């Protein structure tokens, strides 16, 4: 982990030197939570507000940011250069992903604190389960981001290639539409979408919704297996071939 830490620290240094990225990362919860909280929509469901925030963070903070970061480093041959050293492939990707992961988790923590302060805490919150959901969900979207770089040749193209990976999980998660308003076949496949199990677990942990936790955990583990296989199969370290 020392080796990964060394790379992650350097990535963190680069992030600190990008004020816009920092403002966006910290600004989302700082601005979004008070705005949504003041709407009155979540007075009786403070946990749901936090679930919404974390769900969006997974898609934008982890998935989109990481696709962009990896493709940019591949274009600049940074990844290829790192492979000439002693780091393992997984360590290179983990070190590169560390700032995006840290920001997402920071957003969750800052958002959680703001929700509790502005709206109040839900009774019976299961913080360990919420943490497990965030960790598993993060891992899934890190892997999906790695796989997505296989068909994203340039940073500019990431704006387009990440749309399916962002919009489909979002619509199937129930965060923007109630799932029961969607056709039956959509409701049938929705639980297997990569974001839905995380949202389900967070709803159980933070919003007091009922339901078994084993099924969503199993689906997330399934995505981890598929994502790992796909990343090994299709991820490209260099731009040329």
């Amino acid at each position, binding site marked *: 982990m020392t080796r990964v830490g060394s790379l992650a620290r*350097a990535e963190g240094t680069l992030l600190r030197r990008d004020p816009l990225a920092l403002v966006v990362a910290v600004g989302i919860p700082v601005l979004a939570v008070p705005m949504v909280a003041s709407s009155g929509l979540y007075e009786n469901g403070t946990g749901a507000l936090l679930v919404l925030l974390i769900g969006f963070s997974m898609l934008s903070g982890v998935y989109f940011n990481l696709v962009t970061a990896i493709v940019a480093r591949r274009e600049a041959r*940074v990844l290829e*250069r790192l492979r000439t*050293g002693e780091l393992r492939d997984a360590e290179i990707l983990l070190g590169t992903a560390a700032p995006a992961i840290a920001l997402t988790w920071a957003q969750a923590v800052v958002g959680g604190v703001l929700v509790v302060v502005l709206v109040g805490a839900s009774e019976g919150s299961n913080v360990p389960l919420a943490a497990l959901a965030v960790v598993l969900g993060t891992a899934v979207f890190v892997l999906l981001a790695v796989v997505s770089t296989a068909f994203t040749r340039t940073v500019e193209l990431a704006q387009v290639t990440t749309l399916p990976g962002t919009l489909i999980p979002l619509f199937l998660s129930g965060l923007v539409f109630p799932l029961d308003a969607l056709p039956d076949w959509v409701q049938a496949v929705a639980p297997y979408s990569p974001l839905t199990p995380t949202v389900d677990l967070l709803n159980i942990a933070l919003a007091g919704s009922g339901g078994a936790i084993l099924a969503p955990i199993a689906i997330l583990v399934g995505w981890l297996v598929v994502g790992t296989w796909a990343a090994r199969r299709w991820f490209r370290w260099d731009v040329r071939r």
Partner: protein
Amino acid sequence: MTQTAAVEVEDLWRSYQGFDAVRGVSLTVRRGELFALLGTNGAGKTSALEVIEGLAPPTGGTVRVLGHDPVRERRTVRARTGVVLQEGGLQTGLTVTETLRMWAGTLSRPRPIDEVLDLLDLRHRARVRVRQLSGGERRRLDLALAVLGRPDVLFLDEPTAGLDPESRARTWRLVRELLGTGVTVLMTTHHLQEAERLADRLAILHRGVVVRDGTPAAVAAAHAQRVTFRTVLPLPPLDGTVEVVGDTVTVSTDDVAGTIAALDAWAPGLAVSTRPATLEEAFLEIAAGVAA
């Protein structure tokens, strides 16, 4: 694997998208020597080097670096090798020291950063961000990263490409110093005169195949010798390729004695000099397909 071999490549093939970039290359780099891989653009130098470095698997054949497979035993090999890529690979938003510190943190036996800054004459630029460095300074930083882990074998892909003469000389000084400490160097370069002067042995690649290998002198000697004289008179028929620049005539020929005899018969007492082909002349003949 012989005791003295740092790198052994046997019948190496590398293909992508139906194109055979490397076709059956075999070579051996002995420990402590500088081995140069030469060739025109697209000859397969970088493609071969990437496989030898372990950055890509071979399509066929075997590669051993210090007795290990560089792909399957990557971590073992990496701990003892340093690589300079042909271009790029540096995080331009980091300073020189931050770059070295990050890299040192990933190595099992890094040199002190101050030592490397001095070795590459980068101390005065230590706090400067990479994007503000000149091309030569970036190349020195590339080399600094390659030597940071105390490598036994260095792979240098065009280490002096784009450098001014002073930076090139500085780079070669460092390479010579490293050779003096027992480091083995396998490099590609377009600077043939430098390869001729510095390399212990070399191989010339043409269309993915090694067409010549050996010491620079031996490779050059395999090509036609040069017979040079000065005249403004119409030339007699001569066996070989004749090149006239002003009043200087150079004949490239495999039959030096016959050419001199023919010239002596044509103009008795004509001052004639002979020399072997230079590496550059041999290379150009190969590139033109004369010797392919």
